[in-house]
């Protein structure tokens, strides 16, 4: 198998647009939560969300016109625009331009989404019912379906290699990066733009996740305190939106063109819980096995891991199960690793979460700083693992693990090593 490295990063999140803004605000312990004010939320159990800060594009704000043809914007749901922005950022960062037929054919796209264009499906359903089928837009389908992020990105940048999309709920972004790495490793492409995008912050999205009792409902008057992974007062996750994309590249290919190499993707593990449609298996075995598989693929030991970016959504069940799975992985070894949940800053970006968190893991290695778990006042269980409460911590980070677990019992882990 060929070696795969990361040569470009791009992110749009509730902390802002762009890698530098995201890292600066994340490391400073800032967050992106607020009361929902873009749609009627007074009758929803959860009235808060983590939304992308919009503006003119300066100061880390997101201006869709900077990334997506203004006349195309009304044809698509926001997840496509976020994904296009993250992909374009990552490509620009990598310096890779597919400007010959050979380069175009060796460069692919693999960007997923957990749900896709939920808002547009909702609005079009209303139109269909109220006005009939002749009022359904010809862009209804193309602007909502998940693989159209990869479709638009390929068209915008002329990328003619493998074109694919992953749909594994909250593990989507992690699977997308892992699968794209495999495509390069076996030689089907030299460069892949990979990641996830999501825009679920709308009335039907919040109502749906609230209905399955996944969302925080007790902090509507204190949005910034709602996402509190591992804390005893946590009561659910906060829905977020955005996108993350990386440029993955075959090692020799990156070296030959003198690319800046952020990290090597050394491990990727997957597993299934075979337990429940929404709840994680109580024994954490699925999480344990996917981390184990990533370690095996990387050929390293658990003691080599310096930082874990946890799935840690702030739900009462999930956080402790993941923590126990990491403890089981460590066995009797005294933990030197730090483990934090950056969902305490950006909420749960569903299909984009794994991609954004992989980027945060890589940035943690770059800075040798473990980003904090905000709001962790009182851990619900005792652990010897450093969960990095409240404040970022300086720490040498050479190897980072990023976990994602999704509805349906799907689990994925990525392992990155600092580029030597």
């Amino acid at each position, binding site marked *: 198998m060929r070696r795969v490295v990361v040569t470009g990063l791009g992110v749009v999140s509730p902390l802002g647009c762009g890698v530098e803004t995201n890292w600066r605000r994340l490391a400073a312990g800032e967050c992106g939560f607020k009361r929902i004010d873009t749609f009627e939320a007074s009758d929803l159990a959860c009235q808060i969300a983590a939304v992308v800060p919009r503006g003119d594009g300066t100061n880390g704000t997101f201006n869709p016109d900077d990334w997506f*043809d203004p*006349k195309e914007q009304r044809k698509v749901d926001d997840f496509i625009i976020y994904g296009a922005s993250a992909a374009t950022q990552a490509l620009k960062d990598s310096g890779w331009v597919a400007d010959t037929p050979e380069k175009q054919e060796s460069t692919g796209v693999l960007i997923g989404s957990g749900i896709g264009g939920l808002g547009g499906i909702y609005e079009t359903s209303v139109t269909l019912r109220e006005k009939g089928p002749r009022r359904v*837009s*010809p*862009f209804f389908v193309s602007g909502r379906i998940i693989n159209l992020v990869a479709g638009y990105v390929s068209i915008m940048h002329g990328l003619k290699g493998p074109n694919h999309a992953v749909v594994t709920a909250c593990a989507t972004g992690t699977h997308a990066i892992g699968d794209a790495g495999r495509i390069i490793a076996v030689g089907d492409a030299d460069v892949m733009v990979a990641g996830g995008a999501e825009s679920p912050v709308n009335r039907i999205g919040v109502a749906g996740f609230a209905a399955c009792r996944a969302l925080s409902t007790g902090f509507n008057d204190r949005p910034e305190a709602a996402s509190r992974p591992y804390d005893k007062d946590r009561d659910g996750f906060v829905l977020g939106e955005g996108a993350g994309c990386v440029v993955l590249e075959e090692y020799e290919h990156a070296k030959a063109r003198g690319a800046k190499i952020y990290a090597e993707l050394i491990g990727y593990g997957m597993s299934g819980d075979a337990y429940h449609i929404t709840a994680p298996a109580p024994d954490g075995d699925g999480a344990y096995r996917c981390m184990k598989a990533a370690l095996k693929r990387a050929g390293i030991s658990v003691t080599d891991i310096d930082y874990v970016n946890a799935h840690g959504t702030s739900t009462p069940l999930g956080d402790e199960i993941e923590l126990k799975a990491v403890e089981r992985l460590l066995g009797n070894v005294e933990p030197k690793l730090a483990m934090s949940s950056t969902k305490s800053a950006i909420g749960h970006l569903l299909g984009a979460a794994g991609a954004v968190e992989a980027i945060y893991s890589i940035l943690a290695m770059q800075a040798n700083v473990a980003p904090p778990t905000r709001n962790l006042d009182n851990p619900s269980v005792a652990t010897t693992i450093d969960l990095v409460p409240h404040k970022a911590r300086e720490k040498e980070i050479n190897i980072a693990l990023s976990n994602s677990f999704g509805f349906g019992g799907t689990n994925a882990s990525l392992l990155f090593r600092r580029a030597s």
Partner: protein
Amino acid sequence: MSDVAERVKKIVVEHLGVEADKVVDKANFIDDLGADSLDTVELVMAFEEEFGVEIPDDAAETILTVGDAVKFLEKAKAA
């Protein structure tokens, strides 16, 4: 310019994102104004909405230029 022509041109400018001075009677939606086949479907829907008329598919197929649309809608309005 007739009231119908003005409203048609406004819709075309908005939907296709083109300069107003390019939206002349003989401008072909696809060849001159950069529309694709889905854009033309959406344009016809926007005309229907704006003028409160139904444009059947076989009629829509004959609306290729801005002038075609104006002519069709003036006739439909008069009927």
